[in-house]
């Protein structure tokens, strides 16, 4: 695949911003260790241990397809990997 650059769409930019969002202070580590969270417009809209369920709930709440919902795993603070 050639490494050709194109500009991101507004939707893609928003997705990347949500994917990059680390929360305020240590809120994610204090609330969601060992869980997946779904972030839309820099808000956590769903969380839980089962990623599939988190994506489904986030999609239901926001009306966005699961492909457009940014998710991240909040590892335990004791994880040294």
């Amino acid at each position, binding site marked *: 695949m050639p490494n050709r650059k194109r500009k991101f769409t507004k939707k893609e930019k928003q997705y990347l911003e949500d*994917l990059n969002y680390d929360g305020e202070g240590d809120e994610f580590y204090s609330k969601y260790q060992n869980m997946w969270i779904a972030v839309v417009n820099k808000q956590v809209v769903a969380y839980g241990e089962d990623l599939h369920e988190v994506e489904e709930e986030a999609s239901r709440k926001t009306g966005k397809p699961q492909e457009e919902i940014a998710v991240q795993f909040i590892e335990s603070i004791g994880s040294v990997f």
Partner: protein
Amino acid sequence: MINLRFKTKLVTSEQYGYVPTKIIRLIAKVRFLKADNSLSKAYRALVDTGAHTSTIPATIWKEIKFTTKTEDAWLSGINDRPECRVLSSIADVEGLLLDDENNHTKLLQFSSFLTKTDRTPLLLGVAGILENYRLHWDYQSNIAYLQKKRKKQ
């Protein structure tokens, strides 16, 4: 060149007697090849130079193309006790790394532990990924990237 990103958090928790713990993570973004040869959405992954092999949680690998090499492989971390192991299979997957400037690698084939649970992070390890790139890490300057090694002429 693929830009990576540092996440830095100062965490104060009962777990460590409320002594502030600095957690620095190196984050990449990855998309996987799916069974229909389209690409998955981008996921954030932890770059882990200490992991000889990448790990992919269940919900993610169930949606992508993979070729199983071994079933029922146990994955362990710092503690290798049986109760601390995670049941996985080992498979070849394909994916590309990308960044916020829309740089991306070619499709890379790499071996991964496919964990049978979602209670594991998406880790990018050495096999098939870091072994093929120079990893530039300069935390003080907030610069991190992967660069393809040039072949000698």
